[in-house]
């Protein structure tokens, strides 16, 4: 992988890795560090993963680094701040979160999922990644990915069951 190919890889995947790291760590600054570390590891990795395996490889490294940082901070997932996409952490301009109680509670519920359920929801339900990529990234079989994902969504539904009466 030469420099140009590496830069292409960074451009293609940095947003996805950053989104995963932000949602796992709850901290944009830490997520930036994690993303840099992940790409530097790829740059230094010999031999490089084949092209089709680069994204799962990067997702694995990013997820592991994010979870390591969480463990060091000894955060309980339910105590994490609500994750926002806005740079300064305030409510996003396009969504009045103060008035969108369902969205806030859904994010809290996602944050409260244990691993690997949380990563599965982030990668499949939020980022829309293919099952095969997710399976490689999380070292799960295809059937495990589907079963675990169904369990995670059922757990989310149960946590938000009071909204079923609306």
């Amino acid at each position, binding site marked *: 992988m030469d*420099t140009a190919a*590496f*830069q292409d890889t*960074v*451009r293609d995947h*940095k*947003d*996805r*890795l*950053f*989104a995963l790291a*932000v949602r796992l760590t709850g901290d*944009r600054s830490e*997520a*930036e560090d994690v*993303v*840099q570390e992940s*790409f*530097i590891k790829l*740059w230094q990795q010999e031999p490089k993963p084949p092209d089709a395996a680069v994204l799962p490889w990067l997702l694995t490294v990013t997820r592991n680094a994010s979870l390591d940082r969480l463990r060091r901070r000894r955060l309980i997932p339910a105590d994490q701040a609500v994750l926002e*996409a806005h740079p300064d952490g305030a409510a*996003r301009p*396009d*969504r009045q979160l103060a008035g969108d109680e*369902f*969205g806030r509670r*859904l*994010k809290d519920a*996602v944050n409260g999922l244990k691993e690997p359920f949380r990563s599965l*929801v982030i990668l499949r*339900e*939020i*980022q*829309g990644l293919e099952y095969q990529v997710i399976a490689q990234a999380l070292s799960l079989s295809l059937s495990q990915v*589907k079963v675990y*994902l*169904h369990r995670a*969504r*059922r757990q*989310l*539904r149960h946590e*938000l*069951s009071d*909204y*079923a*009466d609306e």
Partner: protein
Amino acid sequence: MSDNTSRHDCDWCDERLEPWLDGELAADEAAALERHVAECRRCERQVSLARRIQSELRDLEQPACPEGVAGALADRTRPRRPLLAPALAAGLVAGALGLGVAWQMNRTTETDGAPSRAQLAEARADLGVALGYISAAGRVAGRDVGNVLAGEGLMRPIQRGLDLEITIPALRRESHDMVESET
């Protein structure tokens, strides 16, 4: 719609709702679930809730990676200039100069005794020029290699060969002074 469906059926549907939404249920199970949902308001609401959850998650905005990250990565992975090539060339030139000076000094010493002050000054000036070149070449290469080469690579062997106490700043000053005195 009726709420008279047994809890067993509702629990059975609850376990299969997500696979059904993903099209993962066998045909006969899917048909049974759909029949139940059509008759059970509670389970129908659960289906609506499950779909709302999926929709909300899909619509979540993806945080974009700050551009500074890509820039920092580009800096860290940019190909470096051949660090040693210009500095090595300069070092070889300076080394040759130094050896030449040392040989000249020794030859002079053998035939005429101790080197004169003028000879020593000339030797120091030559070395200063060479080391200045190394330092400039090092800056071009992106690293400060001047002191590295001028230390173990050059200075100490010359010091030993010439039996001189030389410092780089002193050499540069003398070289500068020599140039100044000639202009």
